[in-house]
């Protein structure tokens, strides 16, 4: 096997080797069992004491959601103003300006919701201060928010009937102290010693070999890049994200960053199994997700390694595969793997430019984000999957004429209604958003915005449509990657994606937690011959079919207008 493909295999295996034990460990941490990191307890008690929090105070699911929404609101308000006035605050060695209100609105929402859609460029749009107290801070806490929400969901199914689901602050703080902070530190050090800058010096200047004067943006990036991947955030220190040689100096760092972004999503699935004492169920879920990964990955790798057919016609050698927007030190294979991973787990960082990938690759990237539950984002991945699972329980219950049940709790009209609404939300936001954008582009091409609608698109034809579709899909999935050719820093895109981001984040968190809370409070029905078993291969396949059918029905027309149309045109 060639070295590039071998790199993918090794990376994935290494991911599992780390993620599975990590899942076991997380289950113990959140169950309050003894673990080796208990030496951090004094740090946690200190944090709780200073914040006036009693971590033993039990909450029901509504109180959990209130706490979650309150602290997120605090971050939104705080960050909005800091970004607007960043030029007047310290630690701005490059003298970058404050953000416009619409850009700040979009940016702060985007970081609070763990998306990191960046309508600014890291080198010129933010300061060292805001990179720290807004960007990096929110990378930690937005990820911890997702994990804490998932733990509430775990908690609802641990005991037979429970209303009291632990303390939100407890889960939240522990995800930072026991998971995110220590792992980030390790990753940051690996990056720092591979060449990623860590010092607070501002821009540098040198005269190149040929005598050109070159300015170099730098800054303490290593710490942020670590949590950017670990927390499935994806916002880059530099404009070019992880294609930038400072963010991602070599092949080893690419492997490290790739592993970092998948371990928590996988670990959360494993943790679920241990936490609710249903390990087989967790393995089935993991299996379905993994099949999903490979179904998207294999065609992606194959189309990128195949190279651009339009360039092949020019008679040049494409033994190295498609290289537009890619870096030589990574090569197309691991770049293709990255593009799959970053879209299914909602990281949204890139080590190659997605706008320049092959048409079908674009289709797989979009589909990964539309499904958004193959591993999925930190904590929210398993919550998204849970919604599909409830739908599958409901449909299979109807098919075989059994009462739909999940883990000993009857799934009734109210729960199914919530699940159905959440399922409908994504296509609504994605399709309506893209429709609005297309309408404005076509009918109001000369609106006097920072970027005129007629100049939005960097590419003509079907690919241009894909740029808009991708932007909205990425916002809804809280992914944050983009077909970056899109001229998105103007009032319409900033507002539209800002709203999509908010709805696409909080409703899909509240929905599953509400369902879990409602189910958990119901009377426990012991398993009997009449029970529909959810931890079987058959049910796994059923869930997979539900995911496939729902998404195909929702998105096939949009995909056909964008990437698929481009693909077939290129075949000519």
């Amino acid at each position, binding site marked *: 096997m060639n*070295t*590039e493909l*071998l*790199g993918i295999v*090794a990376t994935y295996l290494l991911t599992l080797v780390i993620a599975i034990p990590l899942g076991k460990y997380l289950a113990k941490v959140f169950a309050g069992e003894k673990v080796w990191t208990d030496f951090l307890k004094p740090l946690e008690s200190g*944090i709780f004491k200073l914040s*006036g*929090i009693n971590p033993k105070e039990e909450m029901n699911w509504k109180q959990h959601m209130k706490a979650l929404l*309150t602290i997120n*609101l*605090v*971050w939104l308000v705080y960050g909005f103003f800091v970004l607007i006035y960043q030029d007047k605050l310290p630690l701005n060695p490059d003298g970058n300006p404050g953000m416009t209100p619409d850009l700040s609105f979009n940016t702060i929402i985007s970081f609070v919701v763990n998306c990191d859609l960046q309508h600014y460029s890291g080198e*010129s749009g933010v300061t060292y201060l805001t990179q720290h107290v807004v960007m*990096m801070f929110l990378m930690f*806490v937005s990820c911890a928010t997702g994990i804490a929400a998932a733990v509430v969901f775990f908690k609802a199914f641990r005991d037979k009937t429970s209303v009291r689901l632990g303390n939100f*602050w407890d889960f939240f703080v522990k995800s*930072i102290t026991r998971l995110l902070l220590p792992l*980030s*530190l390790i990753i940051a*050090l690996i990056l*720092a010693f591979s*060449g*990623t*800058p*860590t*010092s607070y*010096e501002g821009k540098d200047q*040198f*005269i*190149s*070999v*040929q005598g*050109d004067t*070159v300015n170099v*943006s730098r800054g*303490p990036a290593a710490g942020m890049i670590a949590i950017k991947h670990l927390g499935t955030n994806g916002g880059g220190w530099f404009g*070019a994200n992880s*294609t*930038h*040689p400072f963010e991602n100096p070599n*092949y*080893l760092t690419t*492997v490290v960053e790739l592993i970092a972004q998948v371990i928590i999503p996988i670990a959360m699935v494993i943790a679920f199994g241990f936490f609710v004492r249903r390990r087989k169920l967790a393995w089935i879920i993991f299996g379905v997700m993994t099949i999903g990964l490979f179904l998207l990955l294999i065609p992606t790798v194959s189309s990128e390694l195949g190279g651009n057919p339009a*360039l092949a016609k020019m008679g040049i050698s494409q033994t*190295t595969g*498609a290289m*537009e*927007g*890619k870096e*030589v*030190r*990574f090569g197309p294979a691991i770049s293709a793997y990255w593009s799959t991973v970053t879209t299914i787990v909602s990281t949204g960082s890139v080590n190659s430019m997605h*706008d*320049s990938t092959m*048409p079908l690759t674009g289709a797989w990237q979009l589909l990964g984000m539309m499904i958004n539950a193959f591993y999925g984002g930190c904590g929210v991945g398993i919550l998204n999957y849970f919604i599909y699972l409830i739908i599958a329980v409901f449909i299979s219950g109807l098919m075989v004429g059994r009462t739909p049940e999940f883990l000993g709790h009857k799934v009734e009209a109210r729960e199914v209604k919530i699940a159905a609404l959440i399922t409908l939300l994504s296509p609504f936001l994605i399709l309506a958003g893209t429709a609005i954008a297309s309408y404005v582009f076509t009918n109001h091409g000369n609106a006097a915005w920072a970027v005129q609608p007629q100049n939005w698109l960097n*590419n*003509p034809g079907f*690919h241009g449509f894909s740029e808009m579709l991708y932007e909205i899909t990425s916002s809804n999935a809280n992914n944050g990657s983009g*077909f970056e050719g899109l001229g998105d820093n103007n009032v319409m895109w900033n507002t539209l994606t800002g709203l999509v981001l908010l709805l696409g984040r909080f409703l899909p968190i509240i929905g599953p937690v509400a369902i879990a809370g409602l189910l958990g409070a119901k009377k426990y029905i012991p398993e009997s011959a009449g029970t529909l078993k959810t931890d079987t291969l058959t049910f796994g396949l059923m869930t997979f079919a539900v995911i496939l059918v729902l998404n195909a029905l929702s998105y096939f027309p949009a995909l056909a207008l964008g990437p698929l149309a481009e693909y077939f*045109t290129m075949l000519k």
Partner: protein
Amino acid sequence: MKKYILQSIRLTVVLMVLLCGIYPLIVAYAGGFSEGRGGGEKMTRNGKVVGYALLGQSFTKQEYFWGRPSAVGYNAAGSAGSNKGPSNPDYLQQVSDRIDTLLKYNPTIRRADIPADMVTASGSGLDPDISEQGAIIQIKRVAEQRQLNEKVVAELVVKNTKKPLFGLFGPTSVNVLKLNLALDALKKSS
């Protein structure tokens, strides 16, 4: 509700000290022991800094190996890719022009020898590397320009070729800046 607001604000402040103060300072301190002391590893010629090892720079003179096309002209303060779609006609014209340029300055090579990375823009616009094949097709030109033996230049390319990680994982690459600096050093010593 009011209780949650107060707790949220206090928790935010406390965590900010930990995550935005203590954590990055530890990283910054440790980074001070790395090769470039946390500011990025620099390359020098005759004692003068001429670039960063990790950042590509523009090479257009015939006596140097050329790097990849860059969408931002190797501007290290504004990294970006071209974001051109694979079927964009303007983009395809651009690639075609790049092929012609390469053929013009390296008249002995065939079209089919040109690897895709030499005619496509990188993701960051700062790619420091080219593929092995990308260097090989330039050997003859560089050798002629510098009146060196082709073999000497070819050896230098081999010496500056980075093998896959542990010989097993990932592609091979050639750092253009390092290769060119090695060329310059060669001229002086001979």
